[in-house]
């Protein structure tokens, strides 16, 4: 690392590691509840475990993005992070709000709105916290010696993500209107501005790991984020097919959401091309694996599995079934989980000074989590197809069909265990790096000639 202040990133990542373990724990509670093992029902009913599982996901990914920004922005702007003390306060506050929200969910302190369950009072604290974060990032960029495209795209993405949180804070008496604006937040995050953040981090990693000229990488970054918005903004329409909005969304949402995989395909091709084009090899081989992994798995999960049920004719039967869970798991893991893991893998040796680049532990973490997740997605897919066929096409009763899915839920639990082992190994590897260290300053990574 170049600057002492970049060490802040470590603490954001440590928070992500803690929260993903909690998220997975609640995922297991949910899976067992589906099988009838609901001994915790009185204390953790399903809607509580659901709210915890989804919100921890959002918080650990945002925490990962923040850590990435705290490291990348000083590096790109060539300037020490402004207000380092405030950055620690901001992260501690984020952790406090997140933990309070999760505890609150166990006592019915929430809003019944998928992904945005955090109660209104805490929403205001989230806003203040994010404003502080943005102020630190933008001030650093402002004072810096240079403003690179990568840093600008990353910052615009973070700023837009914060602004888009606001429509989710308005109360509507009409449930359909509430749903309409809920997707302004959730869809325009995950299929819009988060992709900007992902693209920014990916471009930074490719610049650092492949040695390809920055101008080339950043040119394609513009094309990718251009494709994202070209398809993703009107693609929001795929949430408006059957939720009380006019039927023109069926055509517009259908066409544009079918184009959404293009942005992810471009991202995958971009990463692979830059990797092949690069004439240098970075010694941090694990970071290269995660970087190419995120580009490819996001195309499969967010792109192709999204396409599988985005057309209105298909979605009429798959809407509100486990087919969505199939897409959701691989999309979030491939696009946002893996990009956070990629940037963590790249940054850890740089902030701690311990050059653990290509350990067996790191490799097992990568492959077990990937294979485990693919197995989970296959289980969800099998369940989704069975549910659609039996319930939506043949008209069997909901609970009768649920009984038919038990064996698939056992496969889900087995594959989720493989995924969990991968994650635990990753966290163990994270711990092995030790704490961030001032001695790591100036220890630049060297490329190896091929």
């Amino acid at each position, binding site marked *: 690392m170049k600057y002492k202040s970049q060490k802040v990133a470590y603490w954001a990542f440590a928070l992500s590691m803690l929260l993903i373990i909690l998220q997975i724990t609640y995922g297991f509670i*949910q899976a067992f509840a589906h099988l009838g093992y609901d001994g915790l029902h009185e204390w953790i009913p399903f809607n509580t475990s659901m709210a915890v599982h989804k919100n921890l996901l959002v918080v650990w990914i945002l925490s990962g993005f923040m850590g990435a920004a705290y490291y990348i922005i000083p590096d790109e702007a060539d300037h020490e992070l402004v207000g380092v003390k405030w950055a620690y306060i901001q992260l501690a506050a984020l952790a406090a709000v997140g933990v309070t929200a999760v505890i609150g969910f166990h006592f019915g302190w929430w809003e019944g709105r998928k992904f945005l369950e955090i109660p209104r009072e805490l929403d205001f604290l989230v806003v203040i916290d994010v404003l502080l974060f943005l102020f630190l990032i933008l001030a650093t960029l402002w004072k810096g010696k240079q403003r690179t495209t990568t840093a600008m795209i990353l910052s615009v993405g973070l700023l837009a993500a914060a602004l888009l949180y606001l429509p989710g804070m308005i109360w509507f008496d009409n449930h359909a*209107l509430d749903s*309409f604006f809920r997707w302004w937040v959730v869809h325009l995050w995950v299929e819009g501005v988060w992709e900007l953040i992902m693209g920014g981090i990916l471009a930074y990693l490719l610049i650092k790991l492949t040695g390809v000229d920055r101008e080339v990488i950043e040119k394609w970054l513009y094309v990718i984020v251009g494709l994202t918005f070209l398809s993703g903004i*009107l693609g929001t329409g795929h949430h408006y097919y059957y939720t009380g*909005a006019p039927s023109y969304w069926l055509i517009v949402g259908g066409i544009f959401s079918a184009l959404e995989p293009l942005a992810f395909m471009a991202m995958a091709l971009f990463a692979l091309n830059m990797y092949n084009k690069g004439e240098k090899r970075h010694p941090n081989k694990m970071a290269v694996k995660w970087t190419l992994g995120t580009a490819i798995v996001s195309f499969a999960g967010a792109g192709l599995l999204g396409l599988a049920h985005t057309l209105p004719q298909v979605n009429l039967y798959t809407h509100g079934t486990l087919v969505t869970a199939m897409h959701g798991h691989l999309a979030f893991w491939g696009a946002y989980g893996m990009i956070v893991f990629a940037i963590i893998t790249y940054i850890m040796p740089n902030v701690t000074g311990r050059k653990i680049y290509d350990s067996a532990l790191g490799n097992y973490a990568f492959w077990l989590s990937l294979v485990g997740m693919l197995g989970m997605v296959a289980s969800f897919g099998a369940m989704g197809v069975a549910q659609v066929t039996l319930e939506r096409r043949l008209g069997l009763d909901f609970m009768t069909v649920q009984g038919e899915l038990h064996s698939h839920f056992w496969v889900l639990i087995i594959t989720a265990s493989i995924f969990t082992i991968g994650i635990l190994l990753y966290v163990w590897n994270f711990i092995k790096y030790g704490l961030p260290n001032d001695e790591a300053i100036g220890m630049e990574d060297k490329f190896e000639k091929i």
Partner: protein
Amino acid sequence: MLSKKQALLFFLGGTLLFSIIFIVMSIDTVTKGIPAHTHEENMTAEVIHGRVLWDENNCMGCHTLMGEGAYYAPELTKVYDRLGPDAMKAILMSKVPWAPHGRKMVAYGFSENDAKGIVAFLKWIGEIDLNGYPADPPLKNRLK
């Protein structure tokens, strides 16, 4: 070959154009489409009371409504037609967990008034024009 500046213009131009289209469509949807499709004139105080309770108790943490929510418990868009108000009220007011096929619902023990609100809300939901959702099972009649 595409220059960096052209790539930037593609990004800015496309984003601006599609944002404008999206906002114009959204204004139409919010001011005309949704009020008409949802029969906003039928949204009585009782319906809104039910809507508040739906939100406060995070019902979509287990159920889906208009296909949105979690997949642990049945879809409720047409529940009013399926069960009728009396059975719905009984489930909502039950002091022990309602557990068909062993899968438990939280025992909310709602008051008569609250239960009526939720029933009114779900009745109102059932009358929304959802562009054909939920579809009738196309293969139902093929089963012997």
